[in-house]
C-alpha cells in the first residue's frame, strides 16, 4: 500500500539524519525538537504557495532562511526561533521557549535539506501524523530521558480509550498530556462516530484539551496534533503546571498518565495553591485530586497510577476515601511490569465516574504471570482484548466475572462486592497464584541481553561525557 511504504521510507529518512546528528553530539530529543520547528516553517511556506495564507510574520519565514549557509544560517534560524516563541496562538505554543540546539552549520543545513526534499503540507494528516508518532515512540523507547518522561505504550492508550469510549460531542482533557498520545487516540476514536461537518469541526477545535509543564513536550504535542489537523488555528495544549494553574473548567472525559515520582525539589507547593486538597507531596496523589476536581458530574475518567496510590496510608488514604465516597470507582486494571521503560514500576489503570459512590469494584489482573519486555515482547493491543471484552463498555450491567473460586481460580476478571471493598484496608486486590515461567526463546533472551548490554554501554558513554577528562 502506497501509504505504508511512504511512511516507512519517510521515517527511515528522518532517522538516518538522527544518526548523523547523534554522532555530532546532538541527542535524539534535541534533534526531534529542531526538526519540529523547521518542519513547521516549511509547511507554512507550502501552505502559502497554495494560496492559503501564512501564519508566520514576514522576515521570519522559510524563504528567509532556507538559502543561507554557514553561520548566517545559524544566526537567522536562531533569530526566527526567538521571534516566533514570542508570538501568540499556535505559533507561540509550538515555538514555546524555542532555542537552537544544532549550532554546527553543516548539521543544521542537513536537516533543512531533508525537510526541503519533501512536500509535507499536502500529505494526508494520517500519514504525517503517523510518521511523527512513530518517531516520538522510538524516541520515547530509546532513551529514558526521552521526550515524554514515561512514554505511555500506545497499545495501552488505545485499550483505555476503547473502554472509556469518548463521544464526538464530549470534551476530553489530559492535564499532563506529554506528547498528546491520549488526546490523539481519543480523536481517532471519536471522529469515526459522525460525518456531520459541525461535529467534526467541534471535535477538531473545541473538544480536546491538554497541558504539560515541560516546554519541550508542549512543542511536540502541539506539533503532533497539528500534523493530524487538530488545533490548526490554536493549539489545544497549554504550557503550564496543571496542579498550580487551574481554571473552573470541567470536562466530560479525563484520560491521563500523570508523571511518576515526587514533585521536584524547589517546585511551587501544590497545597499553597489548592487549599482544598489533602496536603501531600506525592505527585500522583495530587494529580488524582486534580483529576477529581475537573471532571463533570456524570463524566468518566481513565487514569494510570502506581501501586502506592492504592496502598499508602496517611494523606493518600484520605484521598482514596473521598474517591470511593463521591465517585464510582467501578474498574481497576492491574498492569504488568516491563511495559514502561522505568524498570519494575507497578501500575494500574483506575476507571471511575463522578456522581455516585463506589459500590462493587471489578478488577482485571493483567499482572500476575504476565511477562513483557520493551525489547522483545512489548504489550500489544490484542493482549488487552479479553479485558476490553469483559469491561462491557456502555453496558456494564452485563459484566460477568471469569474468576470462580472453584472452577476457575485463575480467572483474571473478578468482582469485589461493596462489603469486600470496605473490608479491604486499601485497593490492592490480588488473588492469582501463578507460577512465573520464563517463556522466552533463546533468540529473544539474546536480544534482551544485547539491548541490556547496549544500554550499559550507552550509559557508560554518557558517564564518560559527564566526567570529561576527570580521572576516576
Amino acid at each position, binding site marked *: 500500500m502506497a501509504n505504508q511504504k511512504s511512511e516507512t521510507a519517510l521515517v527511515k529518512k528522518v532517522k538516518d539524519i538522527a544518526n548523523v546528528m547523534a554522532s555530532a553530539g546532538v541527542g535524539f530529543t534535541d534533534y526531534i525538537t529542531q526538526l519540529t520547528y523547521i518542519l513547521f516553517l516549511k509547511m507554512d511556506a507550502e501552505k502559502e504557495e497554495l494560496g492559503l495564507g501564512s501564519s508566520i510574520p514576514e522576515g521570519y519565514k522559510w524563504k528567509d532562511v532556507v538559502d543561507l549557509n554557514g553561520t548566517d544560517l545559524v544566526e537567522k534560524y536562531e533569530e526566527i526561533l526567538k521571534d516566533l516563541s514570542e508570538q501568540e496562538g499556535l505559533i507561540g505554543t509550538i515555538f514555546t521557549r524555542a532555542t537552537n540546539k544544532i549550532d554546527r552549520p553543516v548539521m543544521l543545513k542537513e536537516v533543512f535539506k531533508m525537510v526541503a526534499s519533501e512536500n509535507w503540507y499536502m500529505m494526508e494528516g494520517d500519514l504525517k501524523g503517523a510518521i511523527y508518532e512513530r518517531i516520538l515512540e522510538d524516541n520515547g523507547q530509546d532513551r*529514558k530521558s526521552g521526550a515524554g518522561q514515561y512514554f505511555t505504550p500506545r497499545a495501552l492508550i488505545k485499550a483505555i480509550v476503547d473502554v472509556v469510549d469518548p463521544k464526538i460531542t464530549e470534551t476530553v482533557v489530559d492535564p499532563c498530556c506529554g506528547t498528546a498520545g491520549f488526546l490523539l487516540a481519543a480523536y481517532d476514536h471519536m471522529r469515526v462516530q459522525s460525518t456531520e461537518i459541525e461535529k467534526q469541526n467541534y471535535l477538531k477545535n473545541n473538544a480536546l484539551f491538554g497541558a504539560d509543564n515541560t516546554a519541550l513536550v508542549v512543542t511536540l504535542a502541539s506539533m503532533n496534533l497539528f500534523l493530524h489537523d487538530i488545533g490548526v488555528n490554536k493549539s489545544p495544549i497549554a504550557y503550564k503546571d496543571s496542579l498550580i494553574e487551574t481554571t473552573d473548567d470541567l470536562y466530560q472525559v479525563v484520560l491521563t498518565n500523570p508523571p511518576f515520582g*515526587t514533585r521536584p525539589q524547589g517546585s511551587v507547593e501544590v497545597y499553597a495553591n489548592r487549599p482544598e486538597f489533602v*496536603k501531600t*507531596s*506525592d505527585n500522583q496523589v495530587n494529580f488524582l485530586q486534580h483529576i477529581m476536581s475537573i471532571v463533570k458530574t456524570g463524566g468518566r475518567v481513565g487514569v494510570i497510577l502506581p501501586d*502506592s496510590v492504592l496502598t*499508602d*496510608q*496517611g494523606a*493518600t488514604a*484520605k484521598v482514596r476515601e473521598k474517591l470511593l465516597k463521591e465517585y464510582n470507582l467501578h474498574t481497576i486494571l492491574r498492569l504488568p511490569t516491563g511495559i514502561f521503560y522505568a*524498570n*519494575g514500576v507497578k501500575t494500574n489503570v483506575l476507571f471511575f465516574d463522578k456522581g455516585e459512590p463506589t459500590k462493587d469494584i471489578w478488577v482485571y489482573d493483567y499482572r500476575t504471570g504476565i511477562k513483557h519486555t520493551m525489547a522483545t515482547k512489548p504489550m500489544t493491543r490484542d493482549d488487552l482484548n479479553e479485558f476490553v471484552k469483559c469491561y462491557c463498555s456502555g453496558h456494564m450491567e452485563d459484566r460477568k466475572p471469569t474468576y470462580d473460586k472453584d472452577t476457575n481460580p485463575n480467572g483474571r476478571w473478578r468482582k469485589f462486592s461493596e462489603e469486600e471493598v470496605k473490608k479491604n484496608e486499601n485497593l490492592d486486590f490480588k488473588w492469582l497464584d501463578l507460577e512465573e515461567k*520464563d517463556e*522466552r*526463546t*533463546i533468540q529473544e*533472551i*539474546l536480544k*534482551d*541481553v544485547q539491548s*541490556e*548490554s547496549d*544500554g*550499559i*554501554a550507552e*550509559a*557508560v558513554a*554518557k*558517564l564518560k561525557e*559527564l*566526567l570529561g577528562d*576527570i580521572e*576516576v
Partner: protein
Amino acid sequence: MIDTETLRKKIINLAIQGKLTRQLPEDGNAEDLYVRIQEEKAKLINVGKIKKDKSLPAITDDETAFVIPNNWKWVRLGEITDINGGTTPKSNEVSQTGDIPYFKVSDMNAVGNEKLMVHAKHFINSLYTGKIFPAGTIIYPKNGGAALTNKRRVLITDSAIDLNTGGCTPIIIELLNWVKIFLETVDFNDLDTGSNIPTVNATMLKHSCIPLPPLSEQIRIADILDAIFAQIEIIETLQKQFEYDINVLKGKIIEYGLKGKLTKQLFEDGEATSLFEEIQKQDLNLSKVSKTALSVTPDDIPFEIPKNWIWVRLASLYEINPKVEANANDDAAFIPMEKVSPGYTKDFAFEIQKWNIASKNHTKFQNDDVAFAKISPCFENRKSFIAKDLPNGIGGGTTELIVLRQKLVYPDYTYYVISDQRFIDAGSLSYNGIVGQQRVKSDVIKNYLVPLPPFAEQIRIAKRIDDLLCLITKRKTV
C-alpha cells in the same frame, strides 16, 4: 561488571574536593557564605529555634584531609547545621492522622521512603512537647545497630522523630544538598562511641570538618552528581537484568541441548535403543523398582525428542549411590559440601584422606561418577560435580549427595541432565522434610524421565553446551 558502589564513592570524593567542577570567579567566596550562615544562626538562636551550643574550636591543618580550592572554606559541620536527637512521643500523643508525621527508625525502611520521608504511618498531636524538626532535616538512626548502616533520609515536612533518630538541620535550606553529599563520605562507624549499643557521637559529628564551596558551585556540583548518578542507576538496573538474563540463557541452552536442538542427529550415530539394550545387558544393581513403575507411556512424555533417541526413567539408566571398592589405607579425595561448586561449573576441590576415613559414613564415588546435592538450597543452587582425577580414582564426601553411575553414558551429558531446569523443578517441587532440612524425594529422582541420545551425540551435545556456556561467561565482561 562495573562496580557501581566503588564508582559512586570515588565520584562523591571528587565532588567534595572540588575536582568535579570548575571554580568560577562569579561564584565569589565561601567566606561570605560562612558569614551569612553565622548571622542566620544567631537569628535562630535569638528566637529560640535552636539552642546555643559551645563554640567549636578552629580547624587545624592536620584535621583537613585534602586541599580545597582557594575560594572554599573548611568549616565544622556543627557550625553550619543544627544537630539534635529526637524524642519518642507517649502513646496519647500519637494518632493515625494529623499534620505532623512522626518517624521511628523503622519508618526509614518503608517502601517509598528510600530517599525522602514521604510515607508516614503515625502523626503527633498537640500534646507532644518534643522538638519538631523542620522540612529539610537530614535524619539518621543514631542508636542501635541501624546507626552503623549509614542510612540517611530527608524530611519533606516538619516532623517529629524518636529518640533513636538524629536530625541534622542545615542552618539555611540552600545547604541541604551539599550537606547530604558530604555525609555520603562519612562512615558513622567511625563516630560510634557506644560501649554496648552502637551510638553516633553527636559531638564528634558536630566537630566533623566539611569543605564549604560557594552556593553557586554547590548547585553545579549537585547538578552534575544528579546526572552522573542517574546514569549509574541505569547501569545498575541493567547489570542486574543482564545477570539474570544470562542465567536464564544458560538454562535455555542446556534445555535446548537436551532436546536435541543444538546438534544434528547423524545416521552413523545409530539408535539409542541399542545403547539402552547394552546398558540392560550389564549385570547392574539398579534400583529395585518394579517394571511397571519404570515404563514410559506417551502421556508421560514432556516433549518431542529426535527419532533415534528414547525416553528412559533415571532408575533404569543409572546406579544410584553404588558401592566403591578400595583399600582402607589408600589415599582418597574427601569433598565436603563447601568444596562443591554451585551453578554450571563441574569442578570441586578436595582434601586427601585415607579411604577408611573418607568413606566411613560418607557418600562414596569414583572417577566418572556424577554427584549432586540432594538438600535445599544446595540442590536449587546446582551444587554438583563430575568426579575426575581423584587420587586412586576414589573419593568420599558429604552425606547430602546423590551419586549416579553409568559407564555407557557420557558423564558430561549426565551432568547436564541433572543441571537442567526441568530436573531442578521436579526435585524441588517434591521436597520432603521440614524447612531447613528439605531433601529431594528419591522416588521423584528414580522416576525422572531422561532423554537419551546415542553415545556419539551425547558427546557432541555436552561439548556444544560447554562451548556455548564458556562463550557466554567470557562475554559477560561488558
